[in-house]
């Protein structure tokens, strides 16, 4: 059980490192962790690896994803306070306006495309 978890974690870390190495070596325009994710998706789709091999550890990571970036948010303390004082209000306005824009555009277009009648069917 523990051995399996360690192996799964090692596999996820290896794919991340391989992704980073490939991106750096081939100068690919995407982050290594994203390439690592695409490689795991490809391995799963090609049935070169089994879903069950990764599922328990992946589920743990997915469920607790927030834990891994909480420290970065805490790190906001180290940013100069002047940033919030001079731009805080503008940032809040932009975030609220673009949240509405993003949700309405995505939800609206998805609904519109879903409702289009299809002739051949």
């Amino acid at each position, binding site marked *: 059980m523990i051995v399996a978890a360690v192996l799964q974690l090692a596999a996820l870390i290896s794919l991340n490192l391989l992704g980073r190495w490939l991106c750096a070596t081939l100068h690919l325009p995407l982050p290594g962790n994203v390439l690592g994710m695409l490689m*795991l998706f490809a391995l799963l789709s090609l049935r070169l690896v089994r879903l069950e091999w990764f599922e328990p550890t992946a589920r743990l990571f997915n469920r607790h994803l927030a834990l891994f970036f909480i420290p970065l948010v805490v790190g906001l303390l180290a940013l100069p306070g002047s940033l919030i004082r001079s731009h805080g209000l503008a940032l809040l306005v932009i975030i609220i306006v673009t949240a509405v824009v*993003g949700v309405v555009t995505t939800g609206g277009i998805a609904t519109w495309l879903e409702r289009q009648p299809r002739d051949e069917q």
Partner: protein
Amino acid sequence: MITIISIVLTVSIYAASIRVRARYRSPLFGPVVLSAPVIMLIITLTPIHITGYEHAIKIITYFLGPATVALAVPFYRNRHVLFTNVVPMVVSLVAGTLASIVGAILLGRVLGLPASIEAALSLKTATAPVAVALAPRVGANPTLVAGLVVLYALIVTFIGPRLLTALRIRGAVARGSALGGIGSGQGVAEALTEGEATGASAVVSMVLAALVVTVIAPPVVHLSSNL
């Protein structure tokens, strides 16, 4: 030693926040929204301080890499949602992401934001681990990016469901795409409370949206900085 204390502190506060979240369903009680301010307060009031905490940030953040790779699993498990709704999902996510990025850059110009903050805003629809990894590519501070992603996702999660309902957008694919694709992790958590179909399309949309941001944010930011 101070690093070990910082890590234990972070994990304990996070674990406590999960308990609180289980009791109150509001997005205001999400784990990041609850934990980060509490940890900030504790390290400011104790001799840990942000300087002592910095090594813990490096260690815990390292796991964002494998955590991103692990996103392939729920994406693969729910891939049928994408395969049966390829056009509405891809088109709406590209349009929604682009609208959010362009809107932020235009408003940033009007309100006089520095270019580095505009760049950080361009990544806010991506899930935090991907947004943080993209930060150096657009010349943004990873910490600021993480903070903006969390705040943006909180607002999306808070107003998104009401907004969609008011616009009579009821389809699971549309609601899932809007919540997961624009509101990333917090949006997915919210979508899962609406039901299985909405949750599945939100999971797929979050991963898809991260790929969309990876492809379009850097060129849009570079283009806008030359205008």
